[in-house]
């Protein structure tokens, strides 16, 4: 594929699934600067893996796998190595919402805080559950059996209910 065509196709994919990238980065990084770096790193790794995308899996599965793998590995880096020589000064993804804070926003903030407090793999599972992914897709992303997914989702549901009841 010609470089420009490939690049354009890649950008279309990123634009289509930018919500996934943003949600993963937001869950794994509470600090703004770190989040910006993480989004950049996720997109870098998506670009590197673009040629190796296998269409036996959905594109969203591929995006989740890479985003989650990069996010979980991100905190373990000794130095925040920049994969490109000049880090971008502006964010790749920005959120333009200026609506006033409502009760929904407060509840959402609570939910996001709860997610950020979870362990790394539970965080991934929670994101996939909230995005209403099927057990099959969760199994393909995380790498556990569908039966194991069902057990864990039951636990997550109980945990969620407990957390909100205690607030």
């Amino acid at each position, binding site marked *: 594929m010609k470089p420009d065509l490939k690049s354009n196709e890649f950008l279309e994919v990123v634009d289509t699934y930018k919500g996934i990238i943003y949600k993963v980065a937001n869950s794994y990084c509470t600090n703004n600067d770190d989040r910006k770096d993480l989004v950049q790193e996720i997109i870098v790794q998506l670009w590197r893996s673009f040629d190796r995308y296998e269409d036996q899996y959905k594109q969203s599965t591929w995006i989740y796998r890479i985003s989650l793998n990069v996010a979980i590995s991100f905190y373990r880096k000794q130095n925040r190595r920049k994969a490109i020589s000049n880090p971008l000064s502006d964010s790749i993804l920005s959120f*333009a919402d200026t609506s006033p804070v409502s009760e929904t926003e407060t509840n959402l903030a609570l939910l996001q805080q709860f997610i950020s407090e979870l362990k790394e*793999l539970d965080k991934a599972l929670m994101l996939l559950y909230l995005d209403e992914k099927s057990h099959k897709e969760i199994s393909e992303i995380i790498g556990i059996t569908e039966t194991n997914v069902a057990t864990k989702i039951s636990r997550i549901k109980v945990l969620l209910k407990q957390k909100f009841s205690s607030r």
Partner: protein
Amino acid sequence: MENTDIINLWKAYDKKLEENLILNRKNAEEITRLKVQSLLSSMKPMKIFVIITGILWVLFVDGIVFNFFKIASPFLIGSAIIHVLLTKLAIGIYLYQLILIYQVKINETVLATQDKLVRLKSSTLWVARFSFLQLPLWTIFYWNKSMLEHGNIWLFAIQFIFTVSFTAISIWLFFNFNYENRDKKWFRNMMSGIEWTPILKSIELYREIEEFKHEGVPQ
């Protein structure tokens, strides 16, 4: 709040993201024009360098042992043999790490990728543990027949204290330099100036992975 309410809350958030999240296409495009490395590329050169240097060193010491076996002091030869064996173990670990680096695929399942990454990071602790076992050798290698025949009681006493202390310390460190002791003051003092946090976090994640894999699976 019921779980259905929570799911609806998340759906509302999703809708908001769809409406308000903006991709800075220019910046994203810049990434596609540059040569970018994989997550682990930066580790390869150092691993390869250490392996090559280690192999050359081992060949050199093996050469000395082979050529001077009959004439050199048995303490020197014995120390060299143990040193080389431990160095070979360390080289083996580096090779294992290099193989893992080549095997890691960021587009595999989360557990498959993270499992390899944590093994890669946490195996570094083993290199340190094998290095500690070499400590007593540095108190023995220079012994020779003349020293044993003509040395006085004080020399033997001092040597004995050094060798026994270093042996005890090296064995103790080999067994205790591990994740369980990460919060101990001596561990933190030893590790000051070295970035061990990523390694310790890798071990923590390794345990989480094991727990995650086996949760809900009948034993």
